[in-house]
């Protein structure tokens, strides 16, 4: 084989990687510029998994606080990707970020690196830090490469919205005890801590949505203990409040299943949340 051909192939590959990197940086700058000029961003944005998605009625919250709120909860969304989306939201100008954490947030890496998660999170790509990229590459190199190549055009769109859960808890059979005792020391909570520290002028509220009493029996005390330890760490920041609604509800009528509220429960929780936010007196003036 002609070595000159091989050398040219190598040169072409290096050139192509440089081109990709250059394109990424250009698109990243363009996306950031485009999002910074975002007109009227919602001052309050809620991030989290399906627990957030079905638990906070953002229209009702906006009505109660007379300030626009947007629920960006997304089924299966882990803390890592919620944090990236929150970065974009802060960049657009949102000033109060509500962050939902739950007992599964620390038990699985799958939500962070699964192809499904990466495909729907291309909008947050330009907000990943170098350490976030390193985390993704070390855990799933091929998927991350696929993700990188799918770099999107600059856009202001964000995934997630409030979903009315119209189901009612029917099967009251106590769930079997499941093992949720293995905890990954992943960077999910680290990225959230970093975000809170990096934006002292932005207010954060880290909260847990209510679960049915049977839920806590199913997950076991070790998981709950671990959750509390992590959850309490967020109390150290002056710009972050914590709200644990976890064991607040016990009536079956507010649950769709053991882990999620129905629309009735969402209404009650939203009202409770609005009252708490007023009580905290958080500065959510978007004009700052």
């Amino acid at each position: 084989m002609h070595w000159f051909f091989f050398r040219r192939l190598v040169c072409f590959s290096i050139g192509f990687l440089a081109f990709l990197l250059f394109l990424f940086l250009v698109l990243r700058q363009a996306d950031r510029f485009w999002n910074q000029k975002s007109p009227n961003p919602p001052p309050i944005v809620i991030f989290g998994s399906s627990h957030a998605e079905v638990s906070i009625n953002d229209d009702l919250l906006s009505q109660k606080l007379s300030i626009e709120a947007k629920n960006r909860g997304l089924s299966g969304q882990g803390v890592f990707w919620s944090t990236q989306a929150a970065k974009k939201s802060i960049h657009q100008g949102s000033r109060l970020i509500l962050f939902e954490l739950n007992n599964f947030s620390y038990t699985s890496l799958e939500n962070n690196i699964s192809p499904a998660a990466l495909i729907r999170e291309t909008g947050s790509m330009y907000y990943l830090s170098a350490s976030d990229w390193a985390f993704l590459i070390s855990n799933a190199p091929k998927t991350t490469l696929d993700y990188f190549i799918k770099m999107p055009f600059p856009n202001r769109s964000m995934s997630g919205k409030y979903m009315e859960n119209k189901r009612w808890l029917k099967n009251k059979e106590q769930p079997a005890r499941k093992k949720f005792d293995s905890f990954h020391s992943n960077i999910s909570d680290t990225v959230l801590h970093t975000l809170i520290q990096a934006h002292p002028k932005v207010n954060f509220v880290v909260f847990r949505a209510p679960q049915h009493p049977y839920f806590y029996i199913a997950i076991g005390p070790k998981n709950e203990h671990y959750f509390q330890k992590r959850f309490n760490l967020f109390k150290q920041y002056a710009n972050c409040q914590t709200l644990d609604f976890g064991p607040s509800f016990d009536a079956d009528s507010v649950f769709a299943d053991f882990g999620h509220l129905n629309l009735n429960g969402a209404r009650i929780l939203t009202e409770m949340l609005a009252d708490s936010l007023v009580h905290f007196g958080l500065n959510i003036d978007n004009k700052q």
Partner: protein
Amino acid sequence: MVFNSLDFAVFLPVVFAIYWLLGAARIRPQNAFLLASSYVFYGWWDWRFLGLIAASTVLDFWVGLAMSKQHLKVKRRLLLTISLLINLGALGIFKYCNFFVEGFVSAFSFFGSSFKAAELNVVLPVGLSFYTLQTMGYSIDVYRKKMEAHKDLLSFASFVAFFPQLVAGPIERAAHLLPQFSLRRHFLLKEAHLGLRQILWGLFKKVVIADGCAEVVDLVFMYYLKFSGLTLWLGPVFFAVQIYCDFSGYSDIAIGTARLFGFKLSQNFKFPYFSTNLIEFWRRWHISLSTWFRDYIYLPLGGNRTTPFKMGSNIMLVFLVSGLWHGADLKFLAWGGIHGILYLTTKSLQTLSNRLFTPIPSNIKQGFSIASMAFTFLLLVMSWLFFRIDSLSMLPQYLHEMFAGLTYPIGYRQTANLFTQRIGLFLPFAILGFFTVEWQGRKGLFAIETIPNTWPKSIRWLFYFVLVFLVLRLSVHQIPFIYFSF
């Protein structure tokens, strides 16, 4: 294994490196390695059908050898008949069995008796229609003494199973490709560059244009009852672009890949949508199949040296067979029939048009050429409708809404919505850019064979980077090539 997959992206460089490391002087090890690689390539899809390729190879190799030893025409004909019967039998069983069983059932039902046939659900082995024609062509050529029977089973098997063109052509003539397996192949830098360039252009056609169009086409044909007017025109128009880019994209990748290994395959598409009439189109579209039918069906039936009526019926027959070759379905038969009629009409009008246009100045003639191209494309769009539609029973309603709907304002609103909400601007601009490049490069074997040579190196590389990026960026789903199902 498909060309637009990660598996192939790994497979090709590995095979390429080992192949050339074996050394150009060692033909047999190279052939053996190519054969093994081809079987791996095919077996990646379904290893059970490797036996079919091997059987077809051994049969035609043996028939060829036996024919070369026979001087009696009767015995030679008997041997050829055996080869044809077995090859066509395999095609009949795997490709047309369900079609004929269904036909029988319909016929019995028509005459009032109910007849229940067992469902066979025979799976069509990928590439069967292509390599069967290739091996049959070899046997016929040996029978006609147009070529000597090949004496080396290894190179013959490599020829039949040659992975770049095994699954969807080009259908190579033994006289063209087989001798290349007996010659030393040298690594030529220029050929390797051109090969890579052709592969890249083929991937661009497939992944960016064809797969982009596929989304629109599938949407329009799936929900055709909800659309009307202009939107229904978009279905066959985008399908015309899709099928061309899909199939010619495959051919480009196949030819480019073969070039990397020192082989030259035949050109399969010669910018067919720039044809000014249907006859020219058929000289430019799927050339390897058209010439196969010409040489092995049309010419033996008498070709042009017969009465006009016989010639017309021969042309009709070839088009009907061509339609049926695409699949066991009445819609393909109808598609072939329509092309037969259009071809014959064009042929009869051609003499008249030649007389009319000869004294016209060249600039006006050029204007006529562009108008003819547009008209030919319109005819092709209408014929592709027959090809793409799920069932012929859908056709009357589709056609009615397609034409009558042009008078409803809602149809135009639907089209505008489709562009703003689903299609966007990228695809139309990509198609426009693609055809501009094709037009510029229409003198070459493929569009970007010569164009970038005149550009500065930095621009040329930037152009390739953009193409590679678009291919990688848009290859979310591996949409199979359309001709895999034929």
